[in-house]
Protein backbone atom coordinates (compact mmCIF):
# COMPACT_ATOMS: atom_id res chain seq x y z
CA UNK A 1 0.00 0.00 0.00
CA UNK A 2 2.68 2.49 0.99
CA UNK A 3 5.05 2.71 -1.97
CA UNK A 4 8.15 3.91 -0.25
CA UNK A 5 10.44 4.97 -3.07
CA UNK A 6 11.03 8.70 -3.17
CA UNK A 7 10.16 10.30 -6.49
CA UNK A 8 11.72 13.33 -8.11
CA UNK A 9 9.45 15.98 -9.57
CA UNK A 10 10.51 16.68 -13.16
CA UNK A 11 7.58 18.72 -14.41
CA UNK A 12 4.59 20.57 -12.91
CA UNK A 13 1.43 21.57 -14.73
CA UNK A 14 -1.40 23.03 -12.65
CA UNK A 15 -1.70 20.64 -9.73
CA UNK A 16 -0.29 17.61 -11.52
CA UNK A 17 3.35 16.64 -11.57
CA UNK A 18 5.37 14.28 -13.69
CA UNK A 19 7.55 12.31 -11.32
CA UNK A 20 10.58 10.14 -11.90
CA UNK A 21 10.72 6.97 -9.80
CA UNK A 22 14.09 5.35 -10.37
CA UNK A 23 13.81 6.00 -14.10
CA UNK A 24 10.07 5.37 -14.53
CA UNK A 25 7.89 8.40 -15.20
CA UNK A 26 4.36 8.73 -13.96
CA UNK A 27 1.84 11.35 -12.90
CA UNK A 28 1.13 12.46 -9.35
CA UNK A 29 -1.34 14.96 -7.98
CA UNK A 30 0.07 17.81 -5.91
CA UNK A 31 -3.25 18.72 -4.27
CA UNK A 32 -2.11 17.58 -0.83
CA UNK A 33 1.09 19.65 -0.80
CA UNK A 34 2.11 23.28 -0.64
CA UNK A 35 5.40 24.72 -1.85
CA UNK A 36 6.77 22.06 -4.14
CA UNK A 37 9.03 22.73 -7.07
CA UNK A 38 10.69 20.85 -9.91
CA UNK A 39 13.69 19.00 -8.49
CA UNK A 40 12.08 18.26 -5.11
CA UNK A 41 11.84 14.67 -3.91
CA UNK A 42 8.40 13.62 -2.73
CA UNK A 43 6.77 10.47 -1.38
CA UNK A 44 3.87 9.46 -3.58
CA UNK A 45 0.99 7.45 -2.21
CA UNK A 46 -1.91 6.25 -4.36
CA UNK A 47 -1.20 8.87 -7.02
CA UNK A 48 -0.80 11.83 -4.67
CA UNK A 49 2.42 13.38 -3.39
CA UNK A 50 2.02 13.34 0.39
CA UNK A 51 5.18 15.09 1.50
CA UNK A 52 8.43 16.66 0.47
CA UNK A 53 11.55 14.92 1.75
CA UNK A 54 13.64 17.06 4.03
CA UNK A 55 17.16 17.15 2.57
CA UNK A 56 18.71 18.67 5.69
CA UNK A 57 17.10 16.12 8.01
CA UNK A 58 18.12 13.27 5.71
CA UNK A 59 21.74 14.43 5.56
CA UNK A 60 21.92 15.04 9.28
CA UNK A 61 20.46 11.67 10.30
CA UNK A 62 22.75 9.80 7.91
CA UNK A 63 25.77 11.74 9.16
CA UNK A 64 24.87 10.91 12.74
CA UNK A 65 24.59 7.22 11.94
CA UNK A 66 27.80 7.10 9.95
CA UNK A 67 29.58 9.01 12.65
CA UNK A 68 28.31 6.66 15.34
CA UNK A 69 29.28 3.54 13.42
CA UNK A 70 32.23 4.30 11.20
CA UNK A 71 34.21 7.13 12.71
CA UNK A 72 34.15 5.76 16.24
CA UNK A 73 34.99 2.12 15.57
CA UNK A 74 36.68 1.75 18.92
CA UNK A 75 33.61 2.83 20.89
CA UNK A 76 31.10 0.04 20.40
Amino acid at each position, binding site marked *: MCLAIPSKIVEIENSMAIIDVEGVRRKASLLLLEDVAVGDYVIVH*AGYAINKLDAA*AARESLELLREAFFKAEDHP
Partner: protein
Amino acid sequence: MKYSEEYRDGRLSRKLIDRINAVAKKEIRLMEVCGTHTVSIFRSGIRSVLPETISLLSGPGCPVCVTDQQDIDAFIALSQIDNTIITTFGDLIRVPGTRSSLQREQADGRDIRIVYSTVDALEIARKNPDKNVVFLGVGFETTTPTIAASLISARETDLENYFVYPAHKLVPPALFALMETIGVNIDGFILPGHVSVIIGTDAYLPFFEKHPVPCVVGGFEPADILLAILRLAEQIAEGAPRLENAYPRAVTAHGNARAREMTDAVFEPCDAPWRGIGTIPDSGLRIRKSYEKFDAQKHFAITVPKSAPPKGCACGDILTGKKIPPECALFKKACTPMTPVGPCMVSSEGTCAAYFKYFTQR
Protein backbone atom coordinates in the same frame (compact mmCIF):
# COMPACT_ATOMS: atom_id res chain seq x y z
CA MET B 1 21.08 12.23 -2.12
CA LYS B 2 18.33 9.93 -3.45
CA TYR B 3 16.78 9.29 -0.04
CA SER B 4 16.68 5.54 -0.59
CA GLU B 5 19.98 4.02 -1.77
CA GLU B 6 21.81 5.50 1.20
CA TYR B 7 19.61 3.38 3.47
CA ARG B 8 20.32 0.16 1.56
CA ASP B 9 24.00 0.37 2.41
CA GLY B 10 25.06 -3.11 3.55
CA ARG B 11 27.91 -1.76 5.67
CA LEU B 12 25.55 0.48 7.60
CA SER B 13 23.07 -2.36 8.07
CA ARG B 14 25.83 -4.67 9.32
CA LYS B 15 26.81 -2.09 11.95
CA LEU B 16 23.20 -1.68 13.02
CA ILE B 17 22.81 -5.46 13.37
CA ASP B 18 25.99 -5.67 15.48
CA ARG B 19 24.66 -2.96 17.74
CA ILE B 20 21.25 -4.64 18.03
CA ASN B 21 22.99 -7.88 19.00
CA ALA B 22 24.95 -6.05 21.67
CA VAL B 23 21.87 -4.36 23.14
CA ALA B 24 19.11 -6.98 22.89
CA LYS B 25 20.20 -9.39 25.60
CA LYS B 26 16.79 -10.37 26.96
CA GLU B 27 13.71 -11.55 25.09
CA ILE B 28 11.67 -8.74 23.58
CA ARG B 29 8.51 -8.68 21.52
CA LEU B 30 8.13 -5.87 19.01
CA MET B 31 5.13 -5.17 16.85
CA GLU B 32 5.35 -3.55 13.45
CA VAL B 33 1.96 -1.92 13.06
CA CYS B 34 2.22 -1.22 9.33
CA GLY B 35 1.71 -3.83 6.61
CA THR B 36 4.35 -2.25 4.39
CA HIS B 37 6.85 -2.72 7.23
CA THR B 38 5.86 -6.40 7.47
CA VAL B 39 6.64 -6.91 3.79
CA SER B 40 9.86 -4.84 3.87
CA ILE B 41 11.10 -6.79 6.89
CA PHE B 42 10.55 -10.11 5.13
CA ARG B 43 11.82 -9.00 1.75
CA SER B 44 15.06 -7.59 3.12
CA GLY B 45 15.69 -10.72 5.21
CA ILE B 46 15.84 -8.77 8.45
CA ARG B 47 14.19 -11.59 10.42
CA SER B 48 17.04 -13.93 9.59
CA VAL B 49 19.75 -11.60 10.88
CA LEU B 50 18.17 -10.46 14.12
CA PRO B 51 19.19 -12.10 17.40
CA GLU B 52 16.82 -14.82 18.58
CA THR B 53 15.90 -12.65 21.54
CA ILE B 54 13.84 -10.39 19.27
CA SER B 55 10.39 -11.48 18.12
CA LEU B 56 8.71 -9.38 15.46
CA LEU B 57 4.93 -9.52 15.38
CA SER B 58 2.73 -7.97 12.74
CA GLY B 59 -0.07 -5.68 13.80
CA PRO B 60 -3.38 -4.55 12.34
CA GLY B 61 -1.74 -2.41 9.67
CA CYS B 62 -2.86 -3.98 6.43
CA PRO B 63 -5.94 -2.01 5.41
CA VAL B 64 -7.52 -4.80 3.40
CA CYS B 65 -6.94 -7.30 6.21
CA VAL B 66 -8.68 -5.26 8.90
CA THR B 67 -11.71 -4.52 6.72
CA ASP B 68 -14.76 -6.10 8.32
CA GLN B 69 -16.42 -9.01 6.56
CA GLN B 70 -19.67 -7.03 6.44
CA ASP B 71 -17.97 -4.22 4.51
CA ILE B 72 -16.53 -6.77 2.07
CA ASP B 73 -20.06 -8.14 1.58
CA ALA B 74 -21.33 -4.58 1.03
CA PHE B 75 -18.67 -4.01 -1.67
CA ILE B 76 -19.86 -7.16 -3.40
CA ALA B 77 -23.51 -6.08 -3.10
CA LEU B 78 -22.62 -2.70 -4.62
CA SER B 79 -20.97 -4.39 -7.58
CA GLN B 80 -24.21 -6.27 -8.27
CA ILE B 81 -26.21 -3.08 -8.79
CA ASP B 82 -26.89 -2.50 -12.48
CA ASN B 83 -25.29 0.45 -14.20
CA THR B 84 -22.51 0.64 -11.64
CA ILE B 85 -18.74 0.68 -12.06
CA ILE B 86 -16.74 -0.30 -8.99
CA THR B 87 -13.28 1.25 -8.74
CA THR B 88 -10.86 -0.12 -6.18
CA PHE B 89 -7.24 -0.69 -5.23
CA GLY B 90 -6.18 -4.12 -6.44
CA ASP B 91 -5.81 -6.03 -3.19
CA LEU B 92 -9.50 -5.92 -2.38
CA ILE B 93 -10.87 -7.80 -5.32
CA ARG B 94 -9.69 -11.25 -4.26
CA VAL B 95 -10.86 -11.03 -0.65
CA PRO B 96 -13.53 -13.67 -0.11
CA GLY B 97 -16.86 -12.34 1.11
CA THR B 98 -19.44 -14.54 2.73
CA ARG B 99 -20.78 -15.86 -0.58
CA SER B 100 -18.73 -14.29 -3.36
CA SER B 101 -15.79 -12.00 -4.05
CA LEU B 102 -15.34 -8.98 -6.28
CA GLN B 103 -13.18 -11.13 -8.53
CA ARG B 104 -15.99 -13.64 -8.94
CA GLU B 105 -18.46 -10.84 -9.65
CA GLN B 106 -16.05 -9.48 -12.24
CA ALA B 107 -15.91 -12.90 -13.89
CA ASP B 108 -19.71 -12.85 -13.92
CA GLY B 109 -19.60 -9.66 -15.96
CA ARG B 110 -19.84 -6.94 -13.33
CA ASP B 111 -17.81 -3.83 -14.10
CA ILE B 112 -15.05 -3.78 -11.48
CA ARG B 113 -11.90 -1.84 -12.28
CA ILE B 114 -8.61 -1.71 -10.43
CA VAL B 115 -7.26 1.81 -10.18
CA TYR B 116 -3.97 3.15 -8.93
CA SER B 117 -5.43 6.35 -7.57
CA THR B 118 -8.71 8.21 -6.97
CA VAL B 119 -7.56 10.48 -9.81
CA ASP B 120 -8.22 7.51 -12.11
CA ALA B 121 -11.60 6.82 -10.48
CA LEU B 122 -12.67 10.42 -11.10
CA GLU B 123 -11.57 10.10 -14.71
CA ILE B 124 -13.69 6.97 -15.13
CA ALA B 125 -16.69 8.86 -13.66
CA ARG B 126 -16.18 11.75 -16.07
CA LYS B 127 -15.93 9.42 -19.06
CA ASN B 128 -19.04 7.45 -18.06
CA PRO B 129 -21.64 10.09 -17.16
CA ASP B 130 -24.50 7.59 -17.56
CA LYS B 131 -23.03 5.17 -15.00
CA ASN B 132 -22.60 5.36 -11.24
CA VAL B 133 -18.95 5.06 -10.28
CA VAL B 134 -18.18 3.89 -6.74
CA PHE B 135 -14.74 4.02 -5.16
CA LEU B 136 -14.19 1.57 -2.30
CA GLY B 137 -12.62 3.69 0.43
CA VAL B 138 -10.27 1.42 2.29
CA GLY B 139 -7.09 2.61 3.95
CA PHE B 140 -5.47 4.44 6.84
CA GLU B 141 -4.55 8.08 7.36
CA THR B 142 -2.14 7.99 4.41
CA THR B 143 -4.86 7.05 1.95
CA THR B 144 -7.81 9.01 3.32
CA PRO B 145 -6.56 12.45 2.17
CA THR B 146 -6.36 11.13 -1.40
CA ILE B 147 -10.00 10.05 -1.16
CA ALA B 148 -11.01 13.34 0.47
CA ALA B 149 -9.27 15.21 -2.36
CA SER B 150 -11.32 13.26 -4.90
CA LEU B 151 -14.58 14.18 -3.17
CA ILE B 152 -13.59 17.85 -2.94
CA SER B 153 -12.78 17.77 -6.63
CA ALA B 154 -16.08 15.96 -7.43
CA ARG B 155 -18.04 18.64 -5.59
CA GLU B 156 -16.12 21.50 -7.22
CA THR B 157 -16.77 20.08 -10.68
CA ASP B 158 -20.41 19.10 -9.97
CA LEU B 159 -19.69 15.46 -10.68
CA GLU B 160 -23.01 13.73 -10.00
CA ASN B 161 -22.08 10.10 -10.59
CA TYR B 162 -19.05 9.60 -8.29
CA PHE B 163 -19.49 7.94 -4.89
CA VAL B 164 -17.25 6.67 -2.11
CA TYR B 165 -18.03 3.80 0.26
CA PRO B 166 -16.19 4.84 3.44
CA ALA B 167 -14.44 2.02 5.31
CA HIS B 168 -11.40 3.98 6.46
CA LYS B 169 -9.48 3.27 9.64
CA LEU B 170 -7.33 5.31 12.02
CA VAL B 171 -4.11 4.03 13.60
CA PRO B 172 -3.93 5.71 17.06
CA PRO B 173 -7.33 4.32 18.23
CA ALA B 174 -6.14 0.85 17.17
CA LEU B 175 -3.03 1.25 19.37
CA PHE B 176 -5.28 2.04 22.33
CA ALA B 177 -7.41 -1.02 21.55
CA LEU B 178 -4.34 -3.26 21.29
CA MET B 179 -3.23 -2.21 24.78
CA GLU B 180 -6.63 -1.91 26.44
CA THR B 181 -9.17 -4.33 24.99
CA ILE B 182 -6.88 -6.89 23.41
CA GLY B 183 -4.20 -6.65 26.06
CA VAL B 184 -1.30 -7.48 23.78
CA ASN B 185 1.98 -8.48 25.30
CA ILE B 186 4.27 -6.11 23.40
CA ASP B 187 7.50 -4.44 24.56
CA GLY B 188 7.64 -1.86 21.80
CA PHE B 189 5.94 -0.59 18.65
CA ILE B 190 7.49 0.19 15.27
CA LEU B 191 5.05 2.90 14.26
CA PRO B 192 4.03 3.30 10.60
CA GLY B 193 6.15 5.58 8.42
CA HIS B 194 3.68 7.03 5.97
CA VAL B 195 0.68 7.27 8.27
CA SER B 196 3.04 9.34 10.41
CA VAL B 197 3.94 11.52 7.42
CA ILE B 198 0.32 12.70 7.53
CA ILE B 199 -0.54 12.68 11.25
CA GLY B 200 2.92 13.59 12.63
CA THR B 201 4.53 12.08 15.72
CA ASP B 202 2.50 14.40 17.97
CA ALA B 203 -0.61 12.39 17.09
CA TYR B 204 0.76 9.48 19.15
CA LEU B 205 1.31 11.60 22.28
CA PRO B 206 -2.10 10.88 23.87
CA PHE B 207 -1.46 7.16 23.38
CA PHE B 208 2.11 7.31 24.65
CA GLU B 209 1.16 9.38 27.69
CA LYS B 210 -1.42 6.82 28.70
CA HIS B 211 0.64 3.76 27.74
CA PRO B 212 4.33 4.60 28.02
CA VAL B 213 5.60 1.71 25.91
CA PRO B 214 8.62 2.28 23.65
CA CYS B 215 7.47 3.70 20.31
CA VAL B 216 9.64 4.44 17.26
CA VAL B 217 8.46 5.72 13.88
CA GLY B 218 10.44 3.92 11.17
CA GLY B 219 11.07 4.23 7.46
CA PHE B 220 11.00 1.38 4.95
CA GLU B 221 14.55 0.80 3.75
CA PRO B 222 16.55 -1.95 5.50
CA ALA B 223 18.70 0.51 7.49
CA ASP B 224 15.57 2.45 8.48
CA ILE B 225 13.92 -0.63 9.92
CA LEU B 226 17.08 -1.83 11.65
CA LEU B 227 17.51 1.62 13.17
CA ALA B 228 13.94 1.55 14.50
CA ILE B 229 14.56 -1.89 16.02
CA LEU B 230 17.83 -0.70 17.55
CA ARG B 231 16.19 2.38 19.06
CA LEU B 232 13.44 0.20 20.56
CA ALA B 233 15.97 -2.30 21.94
CA GLU B 234 17.94 0.57 23.50
CA GLN B 235 14.84 2.06 25.12
CA ILE B 236 13.86 -1.34 26.50
CA ALA B 237 17.37 -2.03 27.82
CA GLU B 238 17.48 1.38 29.48
CA GLY B 239 13.98 0.97 30.87
CA ALA B 240 13.22 4.41 29.47
CA PRO B 241 10.30 4.40 27.04
CA ARG B 242 10.26 7.25 24.53
CA LEU B 243 8.27 8.27 21.49
CA GLU B 244 11.05 8.58 18.89
CA ASN B 245 11.21 9.50 15.24
CA ALA B 246 13.74 7.37 13.33
CA TYR B 247 12.43 8.59 9.94
CA PRO B 248 13.04 12.35 10.18
CA ARG B 249 13.63 12.85 6.46
CA ALA B 250 9.92 12.19 5.90
CA VAL B 251 8.15 12.54 9.24
CA THR B 252 7.77 15.66 11.36
CA ALA B 253 6.08 16.32 14.69
CA HIS B 254 3.12 18.01 13.04
CA GLY B 255 2.67 15.99 9.85
CA ASN B 256 0.95 17.22 6.70
CA ALA B 257 -1.56 19.82 7.91
CA ARG B 258 -3.02 20.45 4.46
CA ALA B 259 -3.78 16.77 3.92
CA ARG B 260 -5.42 16.58 7.35
CA GLU B 261 -7.52 19.69 6.66
CA MET B 262 -8.82 18.11 3.47
CA THR B 263 -9.65 14.90 5.32
CA ASP B 264 -11.40 16.87 8.08
CA ALA B 265 -13.43 18.83 5.53
CA VAL B 266 -14.92 15.63 4.14
CA PHE B 267 -14.84 13.06 6.94
CA GLU B 268 -15.62 12.88 10.65
CA PRO B 269 -14.63 10.19 13.16
CA CYS B 270 -17.02 7.35 13.90
CA ASP B 271 -16.90 3.96 15.60
CA ALA B 272 -15.70 1.30 13.19
CA PRO B 273 -15.56 -2.49 13.11
CA TRP B 274 -12.12 -4.10 12.64
CA ARG B 275 -11.67 -7.68 11.64
CA GLY B 276 -10.27 -9.60 14.57
CA ILE B 277 -10.59 -6.72 17.00
CA GLY B 278 -14.26 -5.71 16.94
CA THR B 279 -15.62 -2.20 17.10
CA ILE B 280 -13.15 0.46 18.21
CA PRO B 281 -14.56 3.84 19.27
CA ASP B 282 -13.74 6.72 16.92
CA SER B 283 -11.43 4.56 14.83
CA GLY B 284 -13.18 5.05 11.49
CA LEU B 285 -14.23 7.95 9.30
CA ARG B 286 -17.66 8.61 7.86
CA ILE B 287 -18.59 11.17 5.24
CA ARG B 288 -19.82 14.48 6.67
CA LYS B 289 -23.32 15.75 5.97
CA SER B 290 -22.00 18.41 3.59
CA TYR B 291 -20.67 15.63 1.34
CA GLU B 292 -23.37 13.04 1.93
CA LYS B 293 -24.60 12.98 -1.64
CA PHE B 294 -21.32 11.26 -2.51
CA ASP B 295 -21.77 8.62 0.20
CA ALA B 296 -22.32 5.27 -1.52
CA GLN B 297 -23.56 3.70 1.68
CA LYS B 298 -26.41 6.22 1.88
CA HIS B 299 -27.08 6.65 -1.82
CA PHE B 300 -27.47 2.95 -2.57
CA ALA B 301 -28.90 2.09 0.85
CA ILE B 302 -26.89 -1.11 0.99
CA THR B 303 -27.83 -3.47 3.78
CA VAL B 304 -26.05 -6.77 4.18
CA PRO B 305 -26.75 -9.38 6.84
CA LYS B 306 -24.29 -9.65 9.68
CA SER B 307 -21.67 -12.19 8.81
CA ALA B 308 -19.08 -14.22 10.61
CA PRO B 309 -15.49 -14.48 9.43
CA PRO B 310 -14.57 -17.73 7.62
CA LYS B 311 -14.53 -20.79 9.85
CA GLY B 312 -11.13 -21.79 11.18
CA CYS B 313 -9.46 -18.60 9.90
CA ALA B 314 -7.11 -17.08 12.46
CA CYS B 315 -6.73 -13.68 10.73
CA GLY B 316 -8.18 -11.98 13.81
CA ASP B 317 -5.54 -13.42 16.12
CA ILE B 318 -2.81 -12.82 13.56
CA LEU B 319 -3.75 -9.14 13.18
CA THR B 320 -3.36 -8.62 16.90
CA GLY B 321 -0.08 -10.50 17.28
CA LYS B 322 -1.67 -13.34 19.29
CA LYS B 323 -0.75 -15.93 16.69
CA ILE B 324 1.71 -16.16 13.84
CA PRO B 325 0.47 -17.67 10.56
CA PRO B 326 2.13 -21.11 10.97
CA GLU B 327 -0.02 -21.48 14.11
CA CYS B 328 -3.22 -21.30 12.03
CA ALA B 329 -4.61 -24.74 11.10
CA LEU B 330 -5.48 -23.53 7.60
CA PHE B 331 -2.10 -21.94 6.78
CA LYS B 332 -0.49 -23.49 3.67
CA LYS B 333 -3.21 -26.18 3.69
CA ALA B 334 -6.72 -24.92 2.94
CA CYS B 335 -5.42 -21.34 2.77
CA THR B 336 -2.82 -20.36 0.18
CA PRO B 337 -2.38 -17.25 -2.00
CA MET B 338 -4.16 -19.15 -4.82
CA THR B 339 -7.08 -20.14 -2.59
CA PRO B 340 -7.11 -17.60 0.24
CA VAL B 341 -9.58 -18.14 3.07
CA GLY B 342 -8.91 -14.90 4.91
CA PRO B 343 -7.74 -11.43 3.83
CA CYS B 344 -4.31 -11.79 5.47
CA MET B 345 -3.49 -14.34 2.76
CA VAL B 346 -4.91 -12.16 -0.03
CA SER B 347 -3.29 -8.80 0.36
CA SER B 348 0.34 -8.50 -0.65
CA GLU B 349 0.75 -6.76 2.72
CA GLY B 350 -1.06 -9.46 4.62
CA THR B 351 0.96 -11.22 7.29
CA CYS B 352 -0.07 -14.68 6.03
CA ALA B 353 0.86 -13.86 2.43
CA ALA B 354 4.25 -12.56 3.62
CA TYR B 355 4.86 -15.69 5.70
CA PHE B 356 3.80 -17.89 2.80
CA LYS B 357 6.20 -16.19 0.46
CA TYR B 358 9.22 -15.63 2.70
CA PHE B 359 9.08 -17.53 5.96
CA THR B 360 11.33 -20.47 6.70
CA GLN B 361 11.79 -21.90 10.14
CA ARG B 362 15.16 -20.99 11.61
